[in-house]
């Protein structure tokens, strides 16, 4: 059991720091955003599992040869309120830390969900009063504002795409269609669930390199995935033009008269945080300007198989009785 604990700890360290750093620098991710997304998810899951698992296995080591058996005995001790001298201080420390970390992760996930839901509900209430349905495009609301803005508000059957007057004015019909396809792709592919999970992961352990890197990577990959859906019906140049018009039209232009100038302030960038948006927008536009072929079948399969393996390793280490040690 002790060897299992050390192997899990090693895996947890690798997945917390060197692996995500390497992946966030890898250039193939923009060629196959889907495979990269799967890999990030498995890094996060396997990372969390091995972190908690390492402490659990270490703490339960004196109680049995495999995790399930030891866990059963530990529960017996707790429920029976029995004294034991098998567990020493560091075992108990590891067990408490594992329990705390597990609870913390689940609570943060729930808390983030609650906060996001509240915020969306408030946003939707305001939107209902301030916007009007677009006559031409279904499930689309138009809001009166000169800055070009497009976004989607997920909410099951009430999901909507929101466009601003400024956007409708600035874009040609083809460019507008690309933007709407892009936003719809976010909704149909349920990107908000991915963003929620990785946002919670980052908020739970903000000091861990992997959580920040994965959050940034996922928000960038989600945009690439949505772009790829838009590219099915729109030529790349049109999509690039739409991106440029929205990004430069709104950001560079001064606030129009009669409107509060607070609409596009400098975003509050946390100190010490690299500007993730900058790299993301550049990467997104570069892959449209000079498209590279998607990753070959063999390499995509390798990435997906690697992701599966990454999840399998901690699971097997935890559950296989007496496999090691």
């Amino acid at each position: 059991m002790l060897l299992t604990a050390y192997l899990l700890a090693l895996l947890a360290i690798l997945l917390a720091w060197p692996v995500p750093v390497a992946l966030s620098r890898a250039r193939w991710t923009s060629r196959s955003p889907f495979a990269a997304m799967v890999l990030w998810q498995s890094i996060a899951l396997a990372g969390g599992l091995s972190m908690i698992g390492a402490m659990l296995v270490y703490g339960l080591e004196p109680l049995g040869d495999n995790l399930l058996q030891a866990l059963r005995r530990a529960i017996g001790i707790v429920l029976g309120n029995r004294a034991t001298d098998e567990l020493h201080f560091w075992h108990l420390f590891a067990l408490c830390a594992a329990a705390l970390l597990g609870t913390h992760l689940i609570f943060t996930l729930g808390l983030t969900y609650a906060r996001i839901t509240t915020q969306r509900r408030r946003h939707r209430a305001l939107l209902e009063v301030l916007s009007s349905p677009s006559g031409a495009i279904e499930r689309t609301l138009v809001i009166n504002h000169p800055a070009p803005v497009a976004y989607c508000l997920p909410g099951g059957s009430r999901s909507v795409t929101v466009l601003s007057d400024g956007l409708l004015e600035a874009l040609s019909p083809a460019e507008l269609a690309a933007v709407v396809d892009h936003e719809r792709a976010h909704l149909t592919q349920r990107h908000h669930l991915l963003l929620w999970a990785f946002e919670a992961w980052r908020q739970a352990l903000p000091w861990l390199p992997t959580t920040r890197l994965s959050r940034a990577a996922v928000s960038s990959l989600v945009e690439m995935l949505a772009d790829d859906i838009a590219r099915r019906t729109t030529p790349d140049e049109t999509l690039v033009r739409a991106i440029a018009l929205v990004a430069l039209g709104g950001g560079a232009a001064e606030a129009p008269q009669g409107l509060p100038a607070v609409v596009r302030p400098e975003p509050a960038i946390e100190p010490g945080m690299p500007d993730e948006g900058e790299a993301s927008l550049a990467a997104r536009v570069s892959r449209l300007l000079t498209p590279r072929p998607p990753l070959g079948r063999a390499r995509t399969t390798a990435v997906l198989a690697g992701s599966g393996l990454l999840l399998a390793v901690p699971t097997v280490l935890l559950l296989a009785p007496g496999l090691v040690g």
Partner: protein
Amino acid sequence: MASLGELERSVMDQLWSTSEASTANELRDRLAQSEVQSKDLAVTTVLTVLSRLEKKGLVERERGTRPHRYRAVSTREDHTARLMHEALGTAPDREAVLARFIGSVTEAEAATLRRLLARG
């Protein structure tokens, strides 16, 4: 009969168009003048809409007088600005997990983008 959402929008438009607080009766009269479909609008409907808007934090009620007078909490522009902040991810609580086409763009980003476009 208009949907509740549409009614809320019309009521807010009326409240935003004046600086004074209005009673439900006055609002109904003004709605009847301005809109074709609101001819048979009951005061109770207006009151329902107003209480929904109050719950949403868009409308406040002056309790000193009878009948109650209602006014918009803040201007249409302020609300729109807040909406846009949230949409662009520049709101102080940065959790709005809204997928936006382009978030807020800094000067550095705009420069990078221009450079890329010039090269492409």
